[in-house]
């Protein structure tokens, strides 16, 4: 379905991006993105997805706001103790009323996923679930003031194939913001079919500079046969 006058006005500047156009915007609108996490690593991505105009943002997060969340964009000191899920849904809704902000299970299932979990073990587990569900997904990881972003298109090498245990530096505000927004951008490019080939890639943020390389399937990884390892 073509974009409405109101949608064209809302997304005017994004529609001018080379290659995006009306068709790309329609592809974004057709997407239902599940976001794992609603903490500091997810905040910028949630706002980016809302502003970009994906059809729905489905948030999955069981936590409440704690002191560590102040490194993110969504929470202030007065939010401590509130459910992060509710605040994330409010932020998405406030950013763009064309986007459905949903807790998990309310509407149809997701068509893509963005994994923004501070714990590497939880991120790996979520990536396995997204892979099994054949959802194109992007994983954000933070490492101090940097981090990395891994893009896993359907049929591409899985997250495990390029996973490296990171430095154990705790996340900093700048690292959360950079990895989170870059992850959302990569997912937007993937959903709008603007991703350069090869589409499976990993971007490492080193001293503020993203370095991209194609991901390759590790010999013996179970993802060869379309199954998560």
């Amino acid at each position, binding site marked *: 379905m073509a974009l409405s006058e109101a949608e064209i006005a809302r997304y005017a500047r994004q529609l001018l991006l080379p290659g995006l156009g*009306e068709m790309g915007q329609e592809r974004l609108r057709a997407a239902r993105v599940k976001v794992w996490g609603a903490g500091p690593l997810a905040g910028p991505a949630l706002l980016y997805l809302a502003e970009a105009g994906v059809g729905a943002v489905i948030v999955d997060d069981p936590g409440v706001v704690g002191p560590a969340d102040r490194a993110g964009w969504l929470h202030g000191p007065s939010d401590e103790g509130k459910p992060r899920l509710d605040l994330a849904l409010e932020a998405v809704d406030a950013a763009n009323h064309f986007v459905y902000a949903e807790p998990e299970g309310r509407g149809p299932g997701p068509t893509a996923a963005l994994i923004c979990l501070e714990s590497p073990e939880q991120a790996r587990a979520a990536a396995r679930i997204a892979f099994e569900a054949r959802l194109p997904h992007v994983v954000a990881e933070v490492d101090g003031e940097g981090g990395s972003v891994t893009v896993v298109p359907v049929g591409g090498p899985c997250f495990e194939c390029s996973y490296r245990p990171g430095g154990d530096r705790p996340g900093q505000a700048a690292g959360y913001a950079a990895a989170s927004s870059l992850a959302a951008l990569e997912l937007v*490019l993937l959903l709008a079919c603007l991703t350069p080939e090869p589409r499976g890639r990993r971007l490492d943020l080193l001293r503020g500079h993203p370095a991209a390389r194609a991901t390759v399937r590790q010999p013996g990884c179970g993802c060869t046969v379309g199954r998560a390892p």
Partner: protein
Amino acid sequence: MSRLDIRPYSCPLTWVKTRIALERLAPGERLEVLLPEGEPLENVPRTAEEEGHLVVSRAPAAAEGPGCWTVVLEKGTPRDAAF
């Protein structure tokens, strides 16, 4: 030939509307754009040329109202994304 009236809009919507209308055409097809003199008349044809389309003609369209112009664009072959 398709026709588009962008007089109700201001920048950047003037070009956004034109670009979407061009997107819906096949290369070689033409679009007649009604626009006011001033910024839209200067910028819309120029941006169309920058993006690889052809400006076939531009002429005053007094019958449509004072200061109204008609610009005919021919769709070029689409460029690749810059990403």
